[in-house]
């Protein structure tokens, strides 16, 4: 068999995690560099995978690998990627180096902390990040339901420690309050996702009972040959089981409340990890599993899900407007955006689903840009409250500029990549459900509102005393932000490479759900 | 008469022993009740061996006795050390097994 690219792509960061964790406690910088190098190597490997991936290729999955794992339960170690998986895999591999670089000093030992040769927070921080990367990448590659479930749950553990262990040092109420808040957020994150995972587990077992196998491809064959007999009610229950877990992860209203806490209390890089990388697994899984395993049930549930997504869009945006805390604001904005993604997925049009996939990628990049810059800002003054800033653009113009660009990407300004995806989602939804599409466009206006209000309150106006003499972006921080912004602009003007990869996969998904795009009235009338 | 009545007797004794285990606080008495239950079982085994006409039941009873002996030895040792530790043999005094 050929070289197992997918396994290696996932294994590399895992190895990196182990190596990083093994670095002696005193050699903190070495640990950082190790992690960075491993993540970059992973990125290179991911690039190779993208190159080797043939968009026009035949079959649902490519670069497949298959090994029996637990024979008795038909569990096998099946890997394989379609266009959507490749895109998200590339996104993950791309973001992690920036996350690591942005969090360069987040896990340093504070001055005045008594030297303890056992205590190695830096190593742990970066090792955990790499571990998350490994699991997320593997979950994008897994074509075996059980394997996916395993990773889906396993990635909670490192995330839990990242949120609870390395919280944001910038906290109003002092260290104790910060610690309590942080552990609360971490536990909340864990509980929400565990409940979702539990329900999903039941559904996973149900799938095995019904289909007799965990392998996606096998199930697809069974369905194609009509050997898969699934009672309507059964299918619906199983669908709900899967969807609930993914909705929690995504997160979808009303199971979203863990996100603001988690993103607010964790450091900016970890927040990016949550919203830009880990949550994508949820939306990705909706496309990969909910639709492909239970097409009928998906169609059955579409109206409700669309309404929930719509609520998420407007509700998240409104709450973002009402926030006083920069990071929580961004978190609620993300909730609104995830609403768009889910809406695009379940609009069941190729525009909607391509748009949703693009949206996952673009939202990852744009949120990363905005959140990381926000993190730099916060790290400078040690406060997350919007009211503590003002007139930053006067003292730190570059920071303000990058922040503005990130914000403009968040409000999906044409010319920046999020616009393409958001508009695709809207068009895709509109072409099937006009009313919902129109209401969703309100999200555009609200997005402008919260972004511009945030920018105005923090960056413009007279320079506040707290901001006086704030240093502008350092080289490291520029290295983090500049490529992201360049990518935003490039993908905004020339998204073709991405769409070329995604479109076939979406087409395949659509055929799985056997849905076709509604025809324009004129053609239809003719 | 039918040897089945031995079984009835055995079950009766067994139940009595069980009740004793439950209501007595003195560890030694509790132990005696356990012995009573074991003996009830033995009786049942013996009766069965007679009913079935082979000696396996008696073998089991024999082994039961041996095991009972071992158990008694260890159990009484435990009781003694327990009594040394706190000057009482009440099972309720050893109630640290709670949350």
């Amino acid at each position, binding site marked *: 068999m050929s070289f197992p690219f997918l396994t290696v792509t996932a294994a590399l960061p895992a190895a990196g995690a182990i190596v990083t964790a093994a670095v002696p406690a005193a050699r903190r910088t070495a640990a950082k560099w190790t992690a960075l190098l491993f993540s970059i190597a992973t990125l290179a490997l991911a690039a190779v995978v993208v190159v080797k991936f043939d968009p026009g290729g035949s079959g649902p999955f490519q670069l497949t690998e298959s090994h029996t794992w637990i024979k008795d339960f038909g569990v096998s170690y099946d890997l394989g990627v379609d266009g959507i998986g490749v895109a998200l895999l590339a996104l993950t591999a791309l973001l992690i180096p920036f996350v690591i670089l942005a969090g360069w000093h987040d896990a340093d030992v504070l001055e005045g902390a008594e030297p303890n040769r056992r205590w190695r927070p830096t190593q742990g921080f970066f090792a955990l990040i790499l571990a998350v990367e490994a699991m997320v990448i593997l979950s994008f590659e897994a074509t075996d339901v059980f394997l996916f479930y395993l990773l889906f749950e396993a990635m909670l553990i490192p995330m839990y420690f990242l949120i609870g262990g390395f919280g944001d040092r910038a906290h109003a109420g002092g260290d104790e309050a910060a610690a309590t808040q942080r552990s609360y957020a971490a536990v909340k994150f864990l*509980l929400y996702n565990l409940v979702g995972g539990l329900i999903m587990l039941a559904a996973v077992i149900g799938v095995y009972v019904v289909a007799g196998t965990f392998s996606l491809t096998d199930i697809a064959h069974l369905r194609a040959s009509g050997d898969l007999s699934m009672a309507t009610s059964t299918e619906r229950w199983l669908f709900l089981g899967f969807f609930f877990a993914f909705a929690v992860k995504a997160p979808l*209203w*009303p199971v979203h*409340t863990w996100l603001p806490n988690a993103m607010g209390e964790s450091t900016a890089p970890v927040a990016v990890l949550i919203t830009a990388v880990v949550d994508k697994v949820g939306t990705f899984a909706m496309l990969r599993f909910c639709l492909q395993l239970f097409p009928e049930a998906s169609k059955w549930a579409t109206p409700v899900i669309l309404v929930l997504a719509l609520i998420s869009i407007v*509700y998240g945006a*409104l*709450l973002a*407007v*009402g926030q006083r805390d920069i990071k929580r604001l961004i978190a609620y904005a993300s909730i609104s955006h995830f609403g768009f993604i889910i809406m695009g997925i379940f609009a069941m049009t*190729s*525009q909607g689903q391509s*748009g949703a996939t693009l949206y996952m990628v673009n939202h990852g990049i744009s949120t990363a840009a905005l959140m990381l810059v926000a993190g730099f800002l916060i790290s400078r003054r040690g406060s997350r409250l919007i009211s503590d800033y003002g*007139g930053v*653009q*006067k003292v730190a113009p570059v920071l303000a500029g990058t922040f503005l660009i990130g914000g*403009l990407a968040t409000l999906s*300004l*044409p*010319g920046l990549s999020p616009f*393409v995806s958001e*508009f*695709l989602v809207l*068009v895709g939804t*509109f072409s099937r459900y*006009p009313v919902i*599409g129109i209401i969703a*466009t309100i999200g*555009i*206006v609200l997005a*402008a509102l919260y972004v*511009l209000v945030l920018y*105005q309150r923090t*960056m413009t*106006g*007279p*320079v506040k005393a707290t901001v006086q003499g704030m240093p502008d972006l350092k080289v490291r921080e520029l290295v983090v932000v500049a490529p992201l912004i360049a990518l935003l602009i490039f993908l905004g*003007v*020339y*998204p*073709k490479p991405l*769409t*070329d990869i995604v*479109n076939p996969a*979406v*087409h395949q998904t659509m055929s799985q759900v056997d849905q076709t*795009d*509604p025809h*324009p*009235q*004129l*053609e239809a009338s003719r | 008469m039918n040897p089945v009545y031995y079984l009835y007797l055995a079950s009766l004794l067994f139940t009595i022993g069980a009740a004793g285990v*439950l*209501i007595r*606080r003195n560890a030694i008495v509790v132990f005696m009740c356990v012995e009573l239950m074991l003996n009830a079982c033995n009786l049942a085994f013996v009766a069965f061996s007679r009913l079935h006409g082979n000696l396996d039941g008696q073998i089991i009873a024999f082994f039961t006795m041996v095991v009972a002996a071992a158990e008694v030895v260890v159990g009484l040792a435990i009781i003694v050390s327990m009594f040394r530790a706190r000057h009482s043999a009440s*099972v*309720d005094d050893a*109630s640290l*097994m*709670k*949350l």
Partner: protein
Amino acid sequence: MDNLIALLIAAPLLGAAVLLCGGRALDRVGHWLGTVLAAASFVIGAVLFVDMLGKGADARTMHQHLFTWVPVAGFKADMGFQLDQLSMTFVLLISGVGTLIHLYSVGYMAHDERRRRFFGYLNLFLAAMLLLVLADNYLLLYMGWEGVGLASYLLIGFWQHKPSAATAAKKAFLVNRVGDMGLSIAIMLMFTTFGTFAFGGVFGAADGASEGKLTAISLMLLLAACGKSAQVPLQSWLGDAMEGPTPVSALIHAATMVTAGVYLITRSSAVFNGAPNAQLVVVVVGAVTLIFGAIVGCAKDDIKKSLAGSTMSQIGYMILAAGLGPIGYVFAIMHLVTHGFFKAGLFLGAGSVMHGMNDEVDMRKYGGLRRYMPVTFVTFGLGYLAIIGFPGLSGFFSKDKIIEAAFAKGGTEGWILGAVTLLGAAITAYYMTRMMLMTFFGEERWRHAETRSPDAPSAEPAAAGRGAHDEPHPHESPWIMTIPMIVLAVGSVGAGAFFGIGNRFLNWLEPVTGHSEGHSPVSAGVVTTATIVLLLVGVGIAYLQYGRRPVPAVAPRGSLLTRAARRDLLQDDFNHVVLVRGGEHLTRSLVYVDHSLVDGVVNGTAASFGGLSGRLRKVQNGYARSYALSMFGGTAVVVAATLLMRAV
């Protein structure tokens, strides 16, 4: 030749990129770089124009297809450009006026330490605006549409340290976003109706679509136009937008960007023609805004805000004309161009006056300036004559045509619209005369004027370098600022005649917009005389009020209408009370709901589980006997179960 089109946009875009990304190294040459690139764009435009003139009237449309922008099954957006007479008109206007204003800004912003960035923004605006008028499909147009919005946001808020400026910028962007919502919905409608949103495809299939669809699309486009062109009910941002530097007001908020709405409607003529009801709405919006802006313009003492009101009103004219359909499209565009000239000139003049008056914007603190800044006086005066439609000047030709077209609409509508436009002309004459008199005539009220506090509403920090805030000593602006004013003055004098005589402009645009001569119930002569009479009336009243009597340095209380007009006819207050306050309450309550309700449910469940387990743990009392009891009971149950099983 076609491939030059991209360069039109590329030049200023390059400038923007270099100026914004380049470091302080570019500070000394940046502004010239920007100007040169703007000029380059104009030159390319001119070359293309000449080339276009060389072709036949119907073969003048050029296309350039760069690459496919968004290729998704069925949904195909090209990065492609279309240059026809309409676009060409705009290209020349934008790049021409743009270049002039770049030049002007070199002087005007000379003392601002962030000048490089200012020129970067200006170039960005040019690029976006050119993209807007050159796009060959609505999605690309949308890109330019929001691009100019962004540039306008950045430029209005250029002096970000002023909260007023930052707020104004945010307001402008938000109101525009509401309009953009309309545009995006229109695009979606087009996609679902025609399966495409490229100009060619849409206009080709427009006649096939049902009128309902077309009406919906048209109304959505109108909403977009209202946002961009500051038409009622989305006009509130334009007044505040005057917080920006004056060149910005001249370029973006007078000459080019605010007219994008007119472009949109004219460009979509094929769609609008199919939806008469929508056209009626357009006309009404235009008419209302016409009067609205004029009234506001009468009441403002801030010279720039007064001009802004006038801009609104003039664009009202254009929108009205565009709403009239084939009768009016050409004249809408024509008025747009001439207006571009004289309004830009007026703004630059205003800027020059402020420049000489320590950035004082209150006309009541001006007076008798004609002696001190002659060039400004002359150019401003010419622009004034042009805008009030003084016979022979450009405003006369364009506006007169629109009034005729309004009458030509026919029926009672025609009469009403005609009356409105005439009335508008009169009011225009009134407030422009008022402005003229208060600024350049009368006694010099700025003498022994009290020291203006630096944090006055529109204190332009560029003034910091221009001497102290004591009694101003007005002076003429440097040549680099006067030259553009002169050029624009020439334009505002000659353009109308050049376009109007022999219907040059009409023949030029007709292939694109189409044209139909409506027969108006009243002859052109009558209309013209009526116009002149009314404008004389307006001038007369203004003279009686402000020429004869001295102007009070402090604004009198004024009539109810005046006071309302000073507050933009209470539209802002309405917005504040309904939208802002309401929004705040909504968000606050939602935050509460999210925290206590959505989150509370979950936490409540958790708490109840905790209590339950707290009660359950009491069962674990640690007494071996009770454990034994439960075991015994369990065994009993098991035995019972087995017996039952065997019994069954």
